[in-house]
């Protein structure tokens, strides 16, 4: 009976052909990039699913945004769970993106023929962080508002595109009620669409570029690797659902524009407001730096240095053609610096 059904389907879908191909394909059984990549895909799908659920009751206008999030968290059945899953998954997603980039950097697998994999990966990192960043503003709480203000102010210090990017993110010169519409549009439309395209392209190039037999690749993709990946994904899912259940994500008090606008000039935000954790390293750097570095405002200097670093990362496949260990060492140092700064800012 079961076999009959399976045959009925496979005759029409042609699944066995695909499965046979996957059976023949071999990967290294413990390749971290494959696992993290798989988990990232699962997290992305989870974000899309929970995000669509949250879109239904959410009202993206400043008058109702906060109240609707309170209603989601308080009144709707399983609303707080869905919201918790969405929020915790976003943190996990950004963290996993960092892990993936770090792994690739340390293993130097950005080299030919994987340049496109590396570049789409970098773009995915930017898109992922942007998604988390724009989503954080949507509850329209005082804290989210101030966080968004601090973070976008930092982005605005970037060279050349900084001020433009800041205006783009804010939908104006400051965080105003219009910023909410901007953030909502980016968070639910532009960025997920971009991420979907990038994911598809990324995986397609991963498949193409890892064509030949790789040393140590002994595990067939189907069923063994997929079963392993499913186990890892289930474990991550367990963690997220547990976090969402037992560590509630606060909604906070609604935005009080009058209070926030109080410091004239609007540029400075209260110093006790921290940006989201993935920007903490920057915050820490800026706080520790003297007001001016090499005759430039230190914020501009640090953001400029980071931009140079980003350009360096983009050009990496050409710079490091032979796979010298030096880039791996530099990468390792950068990762340690990031971890130490973030840790320091949290503590």
């Amino acid at each position, binding site marked *: 009976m079961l076999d009959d059904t399976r045959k009925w389907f496979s005759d029409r879908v042609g699944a066995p052909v695909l499965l046979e191909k996957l059976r023949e394909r071999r990967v290294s*059984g413990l390749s971290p990039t494959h696992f993290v990549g798989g988990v990232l895909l699962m997290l992305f799908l989870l974000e899309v699913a929970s995000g669509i659920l949250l879109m239904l009751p959410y009202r993206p206008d400043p008058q109702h945004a906060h*109240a609707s999030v*309170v*209603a989601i*968290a*308080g*009144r709707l*059945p*399983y609303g*707080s*769970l869905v919201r918790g899953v969405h929020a915790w998954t976003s943190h996990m997603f950004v963290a996993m993106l960092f892990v993936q980039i770090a792994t690739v950097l340390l293993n130097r697998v950005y080299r030919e023929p994987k340049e496109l994999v590396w570049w789409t990966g970098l773009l995915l990192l930017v898109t992922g962080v942007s998604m988390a960043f724009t989503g954080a503003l949507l509850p329209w709480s005082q804290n989210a508002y101030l966080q968004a203000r601090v973070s976008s102010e930092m982005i605005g210090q970037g060279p050349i595109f900084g001020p433009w990017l800041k205006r783009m993110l804010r939908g104006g010169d400051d965080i105003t009620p219009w910023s909410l519409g901007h953030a909502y549009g980016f968070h639910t439309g532009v960025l997920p669409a971009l991420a979907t395209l990038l994911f598809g392209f990324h995986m397609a190039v991963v498949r193409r570029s890892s064509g030949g037999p790789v040393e140590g690749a*002994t*595990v*067939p993709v189907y*069923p*063994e690797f997929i*079963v*392993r990946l*499913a*186990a890892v994904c*289930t*474990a991550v*899912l*367990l963690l997220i*659902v*547990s976090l969402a*259940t037992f560590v*509630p994500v*606060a*909604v906070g008090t609604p935005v009080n524009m009058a209070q926030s606008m109080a410091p004239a000039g609007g540029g400075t935000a209260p110093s006790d407001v921290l940006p989201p954790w993935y920007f903490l390293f920057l915050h820490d750097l800026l706080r520790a730096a003297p007001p001016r570095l090499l005759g430039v405002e230190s914020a501009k200097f640090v953001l400029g240095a980071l931009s140079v670093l980003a350009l360096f990362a983009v050009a990496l496949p050409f710079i490091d053609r032979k796979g010298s260990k030096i880039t791996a060492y530099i990468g390792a140092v950068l990762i340690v610096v990031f971890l130490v700064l973030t840790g320091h800012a949290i503590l």
Partner: protein
Amino acid sequence: MRSSEHTLLFAASIALAVGVASSASRADAPPLPSASAAAPPAASGSAAKPAGSEEAPRPKRPERDANTCFTCHLSLPDAKLRKAAEEFSHSVHKDERIGCVACHKGNASDPTVQAHDKTTGFIVRPTHAQVAALCGGCHEDPTFVRRFNARLGVDQRKLFELSRHGKMAAAGDAASPTCTNCHGVHGILAVSSPNAEVNRRRVRDLCAKCHGNVETMKPYGLAATQPVAWSKSVHGKAFHEGSEQAPTCTGCHSPHAGTLPGTASVAALCDRCHQDERELFLKSPHSRAFRKLGLADCVPCHGDHDVTRTSWLAGMTPDSACAKCHSKDDKPKKVAEDIAVLLEDVQKAEHAAAVDLAEAKTAGLLVPDASFAVDRLRTAKIRLITTVHTLDMQQLGDDANAAKMIAQEARDLLTKARRDRQVERRGYFVAIGLASLLLTLLVAKSIQLARRRRRGES
């Protein structure tokens, strides 16, 4: 031919772009400092003209434009002589049509020291007695005042003369305050300016300069306790917490007239904000009794500058408002005690509901309906406090019951939310159990697959 045309066009567009850019940068530039804004346009007129404009220079109007007093005093080496001009540059009067001569007379269009000649009517320093008349010279003239601010009143001097301050000044008391004591001399600011001492946010401190000083008040037989008493009152506390509605000194005392003529007590003003309380009070047995005893309606219980919330002090404890008049064996004693019990019950119910709500919030349980109920409970409590003014026990009992029912509603909603949360948690544990089972199966399967593969390889 064609190319030269192009060159011409190019040059013209460059010129246009430069012109636009330069005028745009002028528009973006910060406004000129107020000192130069008050300077005669003869000096700044040409600079303010946009570059490349063909407009003819504005004809000078010496009778309006010249304020040589200001420009000269601003450049004097003696700081004492410069100070007046410097202060004036920030003032609301810095408009060139008012200028120094409005008060000091003299000749503003004469740039030499002859401008101070006594024949021009020049006054060095107007005397205390002259000030009110000097200010009134403009501020009593509606057609003049209307040119600057159509909403500004013209009765300040008349009201001032009705006030005790004004009467003291008329009697020749040089220590009494006149216009300049509160508004300043050269640096007079609009009342709406946050830097003005007469501004709502600062006026208490201004009044307290004299009314908070025991030595200053002694000759007039006044206490100097009012500013401190106000700060401790419900009004003062609300003000210090940032309320925009809380009355400061000028909320009850007319800024220029002081006490309103014909009013015996401040109680005549309370109903400007507290209408319901007064209306209910007038229907109560207290109203008639107070009139008979010559007591001001609100003051015996609530005080004046130190307005306190006596509502929660109802009852017969030594510091309660009721005990001030009613003795222990008085007939109204029972009413006072009953009211105290009702108020305390509602207070307790409200507190319990608020604590319950806060605990739920800390546990991550958001119950919007319950927080709405707690808000409604607050309204019901205020209604009850208002009803106290009637002394109508029937009505008070009803209001107290209504409040207690809302408190119960909030508690019920919270209990229900907690139960729902527990059900959700149970669902969570079932889901976790199933997922763990799945995880175990997947791990087992992958181990099995790995073993099978290794066997196949070997």
